[in-house]
């Protein structure tokens, strides 16, 4: 095995954990100046109605502020959500709902991870497993 291999043997797992933690942490932080989560769905505005949105968004639609707008250049419809002040609904729930609803509207389905799992839990991959257990809740959306 090359020298690179050995060095990475030490650095690798540490970095993996750190990277996963960083993703988790950054995902949780909410910039105070930002109030809306927005996705663009590749369906024309005329086809969509706030009360008719499918999937996980329908479960929170009456507890958040939802607005729809035509995206420029035929890119579809922008769905924007504002969580009212003091609401128990989290940014993560909104991100997941937006992603799942977009997938339903565009592809007719929401992709599930492959299974049954082939991996085992170890102290090294637990931070990563924590992140992937909430794969659609994090990120910058």
């Amino acid at each position, binding site marked *: 095995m090359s020298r690179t*291999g050995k060095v990475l043997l030490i650095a690798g797992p540490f970095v993996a954990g750190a990277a996963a933690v960083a993703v988790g942490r950054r995902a949780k932080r909410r910039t105070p100046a930002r109030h809306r989560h927005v996705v663009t769905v590749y369906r024309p505005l005329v086809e969509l109605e706030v009360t008719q949105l499918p999937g996980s968004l329908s479960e929170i639609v009456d507890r958040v502020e939802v607005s729809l707008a035509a995206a420029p250049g035929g890119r*579809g419809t922008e769905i924007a959500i504002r969580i009212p002040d003091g609401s128990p609904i989290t940014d993560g729930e909104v991100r997941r709902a937006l992603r799942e609803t977009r997938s339903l509207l565009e592809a007719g389905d929401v992709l599930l991870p492959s299974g049954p*799992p*082939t991996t085992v839990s170890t102290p090294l991959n637990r931070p990563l497993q924590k992140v992937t257990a909430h*794969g659609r809740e994090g*990120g910058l959306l």
Partner: protein
Amino acid sequence: MKALQWQGINKLAVGTVPDPELRNPGDIIVKVTRTVTCGSDLHLIGGYIPFMEKGDVLGHEFLGEVVEVGPDVRNHRAGDRVVVSSFISCGSCWYCDQRLFSLCDNGNTNPAITETMWGQAPSGCFGYSHAMGGNAGSHAEYIRVPFADVGAFTVPDTVSDERAVFASDSASTGWMGADLGGVGPGDVVAVWGAGAVGQMAARAAVLLGADRVIVIDRLENRLDQVRRHVGAETLNYESDDIAGELRERSGGRGPDVCIEAVGMEAHSPGPQFAYDQLKQQLRLQTDRPVAVRDAIHACRKGGSVFVLGVYAGFVDKFPLGALMNKGLTVRGAQMHGQRYIPMLLERMAKNELVTEYLATHVMPLGEAPEGYRIFKEKKDDCVRAVFVP
């Protein structure tokens, strides 16, 4: 079933895992008949992409027989012989509609990781870490293929398994580099890296009418394949003056299109290699961009550089000055397999695209760890190891 699993950095083993199940109505289950090592796997095995879990099944370039179909699948039936794009795409989002399939919005169940790292998340891939969806890979007896109507393609009877399997990843990746790099008649094209991906990029450039195609590597067996099977010229960066040769062979202009097919573990004979390797080990940079630097420097004014090699994070000494002042277009992508596979299969049927010679080592899946060892160390003139489960 048997599968090749990642057990830790530079540790692979064949183990027993549960058979995959249909998860979404658009899924199929494929009984894998051929599955291939890819240079991209080396980045995972070596720990350069730190989103692997102990037990993950590797492999993303494969072909097999459909054995189960979900209720929404229209294009496939049990018994079909299919080759599958390594990237997973829904076929109906805006990106898929633009035929930028690896950018699909709905094909990665873990978009948070890459969105946080890169600002936006590309799609998912088979056997390519949890950042790319954590999908079980193809180095196994069976694999679940989601969005099968979009990503799995029936292989014409006249094309052998041995040839068709490379449409899955290396040939479509190479073709994309030449196509989106803008190769056309009259162009001089330089390709860094004579692995399967670089060779396929060079072959695509030849078929797209380039006037001269030059492939650069240090491994003579690979350069020999380029001369014999691709029909391109070669340069060896350990014995030739690459910059000088490329300038001379392009009438002093520099190549019109430069395709980089090397990736983040690039090797270099010069002092910059020790520098880049040390910085990478200390995590001051995540990738070694040797070939990208050379490509940008060599490229003619106003020319185009396409980055096919996989990079994960940040690089040092990126020649931004050359890029800006020479008016270059630099582009890269993960492969848009769905865009090219049908055309590639047609060309394979017409013998325009011959790929089976890339499979220098064919072995049972049980020997996959050894297959990766020789592939990684480029031993015994290995170009691609192909496993037969």
